[in-house]
Every structure is written in C-alpha cells, then in structure tokens.
C-alpha cells in the first residue's frame, strides 16, 4: 500500500507533468531538428514561431468565443488550431521567401543563417508584442480535470492520488498522434523520402531530380505547424506568456541536441529526457521516502537535489554534459 501511495505521488508530481512538458518540448525540438536537418542551421526564431502560432490561435479563439462557439468539455482553442497552423505556415513561407532563400542561393555559412534567424526572432517578438501585448493570456476554457486527486483517492481508497488535467491528456495524445504521422510521412511517403534524401546528401538529391525549393518550403511548413502545436499546447497547459518562449529556446535546443540534432526520434526522446530530469532533480522527495522507508527513518529535510527555481539550469547542465561526452547526441544525429 505504501508503495502504491509513493507511486501515486510520483505520478502526480513528476510523471504526468513531465510527460506533458516533455511532449511540448518534443514538438518544439522536432521543428528545430527538421530545420537543422534540411537547412543546416540552428533556428533561434523557433521559440517565437511557437509564440506566433499560439497568438493566432488565441486571437481566433477570442473571435470564436464572441460568436458563442465552444467545444464543450474541450478547450475552444482546439477548433481554431488548424487556422493557426495555416497562418504560422504562411508566416514561415514568407520568412523563407524573403529572408532565407537568398542565403540558400548564395550558399552562405550556417552562422549567417543563424544571425538571420535572430533577426527573424527580433521581428517576430516585436510583432507578437505589438499585436497581443506583453501580458499573460489564459485561454483554456474547457473542463480543467478529467479526474482530480480527490476523486482518485475516493475511487482507489489510497492516501495519495493523482489528477489528470484535460490539457495533459490532450498534449500527450496529440504528441503521440503527430509523431506517428510524421514518422510514417518521413519513412513511407515519396515526399518524406525526398526530404530525407535531401537532408542526407544534397547534391545526390538534386541529381535525382528532387526540387530543393519544394523540400525546403515543406520543411518550413511542417516546422511551423509543429511549432504552433507546441505553443498552443504549452499555453493551454500553463499560460500564454510572450516572454517565456525565449527561455523555452534553451530546453528545446537541449532536447534536440541531447537526442542528436537532425534526428527526429532523438528530438522526441530528448524532449522527454530533459523534461523528466528537470522534475526528478527539483522534486522534494520527503513524502515519497516517508512512505517507502521504515517508520522511524523518516527524513528531516525536504530531500531535494536542487531548488525548483533552478529548473532551467538542469536542461543546461544536461546539454553541457552531452556536448562534452557525446557531442552527436544519444541517437547520433546530423541527418533525418
């Protein structure tokens, strides 16, 4: 019984939030990794793309709500997600056309691409703050919990329990579906294969008649779509904050690099590794140990490795360790 109580505690405070946050990071890291695989640069604007997608979704949600549209128990934002994806993909299309296409033609150094992406980041950040303002927006209007801690305790009769938030369930399910679609697309369809070929060996791909412009545009559209998903799901789960997305850049890049940059499976695994380790390291184990250890050995302190304030530091430390020990990441990145 004590063991189950400890497990319920860990599920509530580490596993569920960890897998949710990990899914959001994974979606973000997938976008970063796809851009890296095809265009060969680290896109610093990706956080702002997530923010942009979420912003469009919020604006349409407000519009919809003012006409009385809602999605019942689910958040209204989900109805408008496709529209937001469309807008973000269009925005990415313009970025590619007006900014990156030129450097691609000139075959510029990756670092020039990186600087250009910082220009895009600046511009997008300004655009977002100009349109929606710098303050927080809460747009989750669905039912908050599928079942909460109290109901769980009453159902199982345990002393501890866990609640499942609607946003958590939506995030994890969506990520599983999206990743499956993406992997089928990359491995089975003709277009997906041409993307992989292009990423693997650009010259050879050109030789076999793959249109580079088409591949690059498609990559941007997919990355934009994934960024929108990540931004909206993050906003639904926590809150939409324009400032948070620049900070998210660090865990997202860490996830992509830890998994092996350019490798989609690596990005997903990296996202979960980063998110779960952030929570495992900053969780206070006192109550869990109280259940697991014999009665008289209950620990006095909080039994916390690191204060929760240093959550972001964890992803950074993991990043540095991976970069030193195994710079190619867990899954040996570089190509799709």
């Amino acid at each position, binding site marked *: 019984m004590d063991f189950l109580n400890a497990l319920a505690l860990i599920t509530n405070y580490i596993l569920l939030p960890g897998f949710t946050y990990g899914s959001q990071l994974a979606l973000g890291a997938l976008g970063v990794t796809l851009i890296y695989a095809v265009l060969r640069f680290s896109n610093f604007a990706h956080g702002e793309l997530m923010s942009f997608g979420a912003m469009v979704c919020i604006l349409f949600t407000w519009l919809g709500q003012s006409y009385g549209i809602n999605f019942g128990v689910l958040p209204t934002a989900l109805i408008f997600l496709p529209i937001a994806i469309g807008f973000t993909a269009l925005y990415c299309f313009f970025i590619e056309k007006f900014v990156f296409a030129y450097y691609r033609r000139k075959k510029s150094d990756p670092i020039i691409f990186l600087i250009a992406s*910082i*220009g895009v980041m600046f*511009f*997008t*950040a300004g655009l977002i703050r100009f349109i929606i303002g710098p303050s927080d927006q809460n747009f989750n209007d669905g039912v908050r919990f599928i079942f909460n801690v109290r109901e769980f305790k009453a159902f199982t009769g345990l002393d501890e329990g866990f609640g499942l938030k609607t946003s958590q369930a939506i995030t994890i399910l969506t990520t599983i579906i999206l990743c499956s679609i993406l992997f089928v697309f990359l491995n089975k369809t003709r277009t997906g294969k041409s993307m992989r070929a292009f990423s693997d060996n650009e010259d050879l791909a050109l030789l076999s008649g793959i249109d580079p412009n088409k591949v690059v545009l498609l990559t941007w559209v997919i990355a934009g779509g994934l960024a929108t998903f990540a931004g909206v799901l993050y906003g639904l789960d926590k809150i939409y904050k324009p400032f948070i997305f*620049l900070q998210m850049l*660090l865990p997202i890049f860490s996830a992509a690099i830890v998994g092996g940059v350019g490798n989609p499976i690596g990005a997903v695994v990296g996202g979960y590794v980063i998110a779960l380790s952030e929570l495992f390291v900053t969780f206070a184990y006192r109550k869990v140990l109280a259940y697991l250890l014999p009665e008289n050995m209950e620990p006095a302190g909080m039994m916390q490795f690191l204060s929760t304030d240093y959550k*972001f530091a964890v992803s950074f430390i993991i990043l540095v360790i991976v970069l030193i020990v195994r710079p190619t990441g867990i899954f040996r990145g570089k190509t799709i």
Partner: protein
Amino acid sequence: MNDVVRRSLVFSTFAVAIVFIGFLQSWNVALGIFNLCLISATMALGVNIQLGYAGIFNAGVMGFAALGGLSAVIISYKPVSETISLGGLGILICILILLLGSVLGVIVYKSNLTQAYKKILFPLIIIVVLLLLNLIGAPAVERIEAFEPAASGFLGGFGLPIILSWIVGGVIAGLVAYLIGKITLGLRSDYLAIATLGIAEVIIYILKNEDWLTRGVKNVNGLPRPVPYEIDLQESTWFIQLCQNYGFPLVETSSIVVKLSYCFLFSIVVLTLFILSEVALKSPWGRMMRAIRDNEISARAMGKNVKARHLEIFILGSAIIGLAGAMLTTLEGQFTPTTYQPLRFTFTVWVMVIIGGTGNNYGSLIGGFLVWFLWVEAEPLGLYLVELITSPLSETNPLRIQLITNAAHMRYMMMGLLLLLVLRFAPKGIFPEGR
C-alpha cells in the same frame, strides 16, 4: 570614399542627431541617451573582440553584464554587519568548501587514475560538496535572509568606491569566462551560441534567487555614486553662484552637470578601450587572431594554438562586457536582476556589432551609438507612426487603443528589420573591416 571622410561623416551625423534631441526634447534627455550610448559602445567593443576578431559567437552577453552589475553591488554597498555576524562565517566556509571541491576535482581529473576510478570519484566529490553546502550553507542563508527582509536580508558589500567595481566586474566576468570557455570553446559555432545562451540564463537565475548575495528580485537600491548628487550641488554656494552668474536654471543645470561627469568618466573608459583594441588589432596578435578566424586549419598548421587563443579572446571580450555591466549599474544606481533580458542585452549588442561592421572597432563604436539611439527613440517614433496611421479611427476605437498601448514594442520589430536589411544588403556593416 576614403576611410577618414567616411568615419567623420558618420560620426558627425550622430553628433547632429544628439544635438537635435538636445534642442527638440531637452539636453538632459540627450545626455542621458549619450551616456547609455557610451555603455553600449563598450559592450559592443567587447563583443566585437569575440565576434569580429575571432568569430566566437557569445550569446551570453547578458550574463557577463549582470556579473558586472553584481560586482558593483559587492564592491560599493555598505557591509551589513548584523547579517555578517549571523551568517558570514557559514558563507565563508561554503566558499572554501566549493574551492576545495573544485581543486580536488581538478586533481582527480589530472591524476593518472583509471577511467573507472574517475567515474566513481567525480560524482562522489559532487555529492559530498553538495551535502556539505546544504548542511552548512542552508541555515546560514536562512538566518541572513530572515534579517529585516524588507530592508536588508543580504550580506551587503565592502563599502569601497564604486569605480573600483568596474575593474572587479571585468575580473569576475573574465574568471567566469575562463571556466565557461574551458568547457564550451571546443564546440562548433552554433553549439557555442546555444551553450553560452544557457549559461547567461543560469547566471541570471542565480542572481534572482540567491537573496543573501543580491537580494534577488527585491533589488538593491541606493548604490553610492562616483559623482556628486544633484541635491548637494543645488545646496553648495559655488554652484548657486555659478548658475546666477550665467543665468542657468539651478535644478536642470545640476542634473546636466551630474550627467556630464558620468559622460566624462565613461568617455575615458571607452577611449582607452578603443585605443587598446585598435593597437591589439593592428599588432601581430590581432593578425594571428584574424588568420585563425579566416582559416583555422591553416593557422593550426602554422603552429598556432587555436584553442588557447580562443580562450584568451573569450576572456578578454567577456571582461570588457563585465566592465560595461558594472558601468551600467553605476549609472542606474541600482541592481535589478529582472531587467536582464536576452533581447535587450545579448542580441541588441550583436545587432550593434553587425550593423557597425564586424571586426572594425570604429564600427562597434558607431554601432553602439546608433543602435542605442534608435532603441530609445523608437518609442516616440513608433507612437507617432501608430497615431498617424490610426488617426482615421475614432479616439475610443479598441483597435486604436490596443495599437497605441503596444507601440513601444515596435522597437523589437525595428531591430529585427534593421538586422535583416543590413545582413542582406550591406553584410559588412557601416565600416567594413579593413585589410
């Protein structure tokens, strides 16, 4: 166009802009902007050494600037004797433990033990150090932070003249840069950017959360000044006499004099750094750096120790950024960790260097001046533009109100556009790097 003409043209255009602001808004505003322009130029010089001389992408400018700010607090703030007697000893022991732990770590690393032993010993050292820090440090920190948390709750500093912190800020930033550089400089350029971005965030998190050191988000106010206070000037007889003789308004003149004194101090720093950077760039050392940047492999083939040179330049540049950070905190008279935003500190400085011309010190100067000028003036300009565009709409139109309240954020858009346009159409910047 020859270089000298081009330089004097661009710099005099900037001077005209400042004078223009002086007449249009006020001399106080103009000098305020110019002082920050000088600090921006210092940061830009630091980043230029890294980005321009050696092609190192340091995305952690914010962190080093914040370390400079921290050193201003530690050097100049009066020591809080109560908290020192409460927890000073504990903190001192913690610092010693940290040092001892690091020395032990280095000894283990350098020793000829087998990998297996090292793999056990390293985590062991880390765990023991963390445990000891928790046992000794936590109660001390708690006692310090519990002492009058609304007014104090931190250790204070050494109570020395704040100018000293400019040097100390540089040294601290340089030391941290040494540690970071040792770990990250072997990385590819974009990994280095990401890693330094992370380090800056971690530094800011530490400054925000370690209340015993910095008061965290409660900020440190009232740092002493290296120049006289306006109030003292207004009360001193010679100053009143002076104003009466020439018919200056007393209050305004006093604040202009204070700003001019800051301007004088900052100008000395900027000029010294500028001359030193120019000399370094033209010296064999500077040529070697550019050779390494342009072709690392052939430089290595010539027997140059690329990694050591990169570390050198990373430390130098970061120290200058730390110095600029200390100058900034001195000017503001307060240390507020929440104001350190990567967009404002890290990437804006990059924009300065790139627009001015990477690798050219004149470029960094003018880049720092112009970009900061635009950053400040973008707000009134953006507001004016938005009001012009939305003028057909009625006063109470929600869209108009929304746009006008958010107009200040146009500066980010402007920075982005500026960077993209310069990168596309004049990638070498205002002053291209000389041969």
